[in-house]
């Protein structure tokens, strides 16, 4: 790297063109190749955020993709991801400003996982892998640049979480249950990218369970911890990441639908206890369906629970990712299999000796 590039990185940092980490400077030639890979023209409008009077042009997202360090080969996936992020249902503006400190979390499933080289085994929620790290970072950059970066909003996340720098999860290419995206009506064979707004993940550890039921009870306990945001609001849900060793046990006893219903039935805490702790206000709003003397689930329906199979083979862990309560949607987009234009990736270089 020449000193000029280093200077340009510093210019981007000091000019506010950054998510807090150093970026690849968005040189015009790189952005042009990324635009070609995404299949868009420079000034094409790819989405709008009317509540902020913002039109998002292809050049904005292509520049962000370059800055995040994405390879040109990711173009079709980045195009699909951009459309998902800017879908009004996703509520990108709300994700940026909420006190809930949510991230735009990316889920890759089906043939897209192998095609682009996403890591889906060890450290699946924090993989040190080019595809996971840069695609996850791209989504957060778009969120940030369309919100606070544009100067019309303030981020108000009280705590936030590390995923606001990058949060991308890939599912195993071969799954025990049907692939993740089939929960939203897409065919199993579809290469898919999905975006959902979430809080940070919570680990679920159970190394001594001998049944799937015991594992699911443990997950239910994590879903129903007193601090979980959704106990009162009931507008959110949970993404449950099942590790391979837990999946072996669960799949012997449960289909996906049965597991969903089991968790809904078992993830319950006494309403009166939640009220005593202050998790439910003294005067609940109409429609909140607070019934003293009964149990309360952190979700309104079993349909607010979704599963993804991911993680390394060693260790009996799973994870629970609470969705942000301000957006109900998983926005799924199939990824085109069209070949990518743009410059080829340079051949890998060997480290020099000495």
């Amino acid at each position: 790297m020449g000193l000029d590039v280093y200077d340009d990185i510093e210019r981007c940092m000091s000019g506010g063109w950054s998510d807090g980490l150093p970026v690849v400077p968005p040189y015009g030639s790189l952005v042009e190749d990324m635009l070609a890979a995404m299949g868009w023209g420079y000034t094409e409008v790819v989405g709008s955020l009317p509540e902020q009077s913002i039109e998002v042009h292809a050049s904005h997202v292509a520049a962000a993709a370059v800055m995040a360090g994405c390879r040109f080969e990711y173009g079709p996936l980045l195009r699909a991801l951009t459309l998902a992020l800017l879908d009004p249902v996703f509520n990108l503006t709300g994700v940026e400003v909420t006190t809930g400190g949510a991230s735009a979390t990316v889920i890759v499933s089906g043939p897209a996982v192998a095609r682009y080289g996403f890591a889906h085994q060890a450290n699946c929620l924090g993989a040190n892998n080019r595809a996971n790290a840069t695609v996850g970072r791209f989504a957060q950059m778009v969120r940030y640049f369309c919100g606070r970066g544009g100067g019309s909003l303030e981020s108000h996340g009280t705590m936030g979480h590390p995923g606001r720098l990058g949060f991308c999860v890939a599912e195993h290419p071969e799954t025990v249950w049907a692939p993740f995206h089939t929960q939203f009506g897409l065919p199993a064979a579809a290469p898919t990218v999905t975006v959902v707004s979430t809080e940070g993940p919570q680990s679920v550890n159970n190394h001594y369970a001998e049944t799937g039921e015991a594992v699911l009870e443990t997950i239910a306990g994590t879903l129903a911890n007193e601090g979980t945001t959704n106990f009162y609001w009931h507008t959110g849900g949970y993404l449950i990441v099942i590790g391979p060793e837990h999946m072996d046990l669960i799949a012997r006893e449960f289909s996906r639908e049965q597991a969903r219903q089991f968790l809904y039935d078992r993830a319950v805490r006494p309403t009166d206890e939640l009220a005593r702790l202050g998790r439910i206000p003294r005067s609940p709003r109409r429609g909140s369906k607070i019934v003293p003397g009964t149990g309360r689930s952190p979700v309104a329906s079993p349909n607010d629970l979704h599963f993804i199979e991911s993680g390394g083979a060693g260790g009996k862990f799973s994870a629970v990712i609470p969705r942000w309560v301000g957006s109900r949607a998983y926005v799924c987009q199939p990824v085109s299999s069209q070949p990518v234009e743009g410059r080829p990736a340079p051949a890998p270089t060997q480290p020099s000796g000495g």
Partner: protein
Amino acid sequence: MEETSAALPARQIASCGDVSCEMLVDPIPRPRPEPFTVTIAPARQRVVLVDNRKPNSLTILRMTQQVLRTRGIDVDEQIRRKPSAGRPMDEGLLAELAAGGGLILAGVSD
């Protein structure tokens, strides 16, 4: 003040070498709002409260209503409500508030 909130991002950044410069491509879409009129004083001397559905918003607004009334300020009995804390006010409510002409108090929470 935090470093990241000190200033708006640059609109242009140039990469300059010894003999030439290249503009870097701006990654940030900028708001382009339609022209709007600012009213310094409300047309009606009345306060209208809007609950944004954040935690404790309604409780705070009800107390505000009482306090303002004890000070002799006219406050609408009805507290309007946004459909969702996570989304902007809808057009219908916005138009109703604009037509009402009072002083709108919104965005109270936590």
